[in-house]
């Protein structure tokens, strides 16, 4: 029994979650508080991965992350290694794929913040950046955690995009969903069963946690 795919899935989900939460917190903040022309367009763009077939994302990533693609060349210039069919490659794919799941709960949490808190911070002379870190983030903790859990779960279940840009390399890009798919196709049902049975309680626990958090934030903690 090969447990590497499960470890790889967890690693991918964890790395994606950490990077995505850090990267998208400012974006969610801007979407929650700022008004600017074209905001609706940006919102739609952020949400695109929800409705886009993973194959569409996979197709473009395959082209752009390849050695001739813009992203692939940029990565190679910076790191000296190629991007496609590597772990960083599927992390990048996951970042795009899970982007809306990071932005939406955080944005909702930011919007629910008491504006008077922000105004007080402003009046007391706190800089906007400091306000963000010392007032906004601590008060939107529930939203941040919800985002993190959703991104983690969504990345754990990612399949189509990785199938197209992963290359199923053991220990690098062969995550659990791909390993299960290949085990089923090769009629290795026992292996597929074990991997699947491991994933079900993990995903169930994650959802349970999200529900608990939601209830907590609904009733006030």
């Amino acid at each position, binding site marked *: 029994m090969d447990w590497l795919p499960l470890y790889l899935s967890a690693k991918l989900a964890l790395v994606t979650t950490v990077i995505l939460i850090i990267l998208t917190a400012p974006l969610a903040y801007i979407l929650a508080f700022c008004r600017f022309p074209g905001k609706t367009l940006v919102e739609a763009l952020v949400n695109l991965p929800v409705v886009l077939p993973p194959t569409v994302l996979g197709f473009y990533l395959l082209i752009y*992350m390849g050695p*001739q693609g813009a992203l692939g060349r940029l990565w190679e210039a910076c790191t000296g290694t190629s991007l*496609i069919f590597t772990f960083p490659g599927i992390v990048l794919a996951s970042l795009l794929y899970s982007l809306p799941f990071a932005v939406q709960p955080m944005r909702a949490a930011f919007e629910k913040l008491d504006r008077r808190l922000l105004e007080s911070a402003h009046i007391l002379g706190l800089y906007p950046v400091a306000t963000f870190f010392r007032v906004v983030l601590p008060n939107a903790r529930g939203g941040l955690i919800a985002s993190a859990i959703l991104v983690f779960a969504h990345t754990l279940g990612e399949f189509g995009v990785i199938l197209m840009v992963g*290359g*199923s390399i053991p220990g690098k890009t*062969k995550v659990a969903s791909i390993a299960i798919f290949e085990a089923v196709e090769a009629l290795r049902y026992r292996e597929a069963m074990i991997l699947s049975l491991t994933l079900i309680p993990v995903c169930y626990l994650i959802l349970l946690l999200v529900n608990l958090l939601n209830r907590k934030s609904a009733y006030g903690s």
Partner: protein
Amino acid sequence: MKTRLTILGLAICLVFPSLARAGDKLMVAVAANYMVPFQEIRELFVKKYHIEVEQTFASTGKFYAQIIHGAPYDLFLAADEQRPKLLFDQGLATEPFIYATGRLIVWTAKADLRQAKNWQDLIKSSAVQKIAIANIENAPYATAAKIALEKVGLWDSVQGKLVFAQDVAQVFQYAHTGAVDVGFCPLSVMGNDLGQSGFYLKVDQAPPIVQAACVIKNSKHREAAEELAAFLTSAEVMAIKQRIGYE
């Protein structure tokens, strides 16, 4: 009222397309390596016999798993002899017959790899960082590639460079888009313009890939399936096959 009925009717047709068009097409499962010749063969067959043909391309192992679970194919063109025989042994298919023998090549889109004298040199070249190969369990061309790599003692040293595709069609896609430097493909990829845009070397150490086909016993179009099966080994089809790189 009338518009509502029309909408309802349309919705029903969308949900159950088989009502609108009874399943009168021959469904053929074709191993991905045979994509290029099969498209020509199909055109000829449809013209001659007036039987509609619908085909799906995937790896042999994938189709085998689907057929065991009752996938509604009428005819199965595999890339090995083993799977059709297994289906026959289980009483799921009629006796298999060989319809083609294919060859393995390494294919590259990179102009700077054209100097390589043989495929081993190409694989060993320092410019080759990534090599695509199909799923070894499911794709017979990948199995052949593994055998060849083992024979020349390169299997262990290429491990870090291998990228695994679902079938040989995806291998070619990876190689053609430049996502990998080299791919283990069937010779038949040279049968279309995309293949001609690159450079290939034959893998002599790989065994010839003997490909068998069988009619699925559950087929609702048994007669039509038998007809297409017979057509696969006709002189007309032979000419197409040979031009595209099959024996």
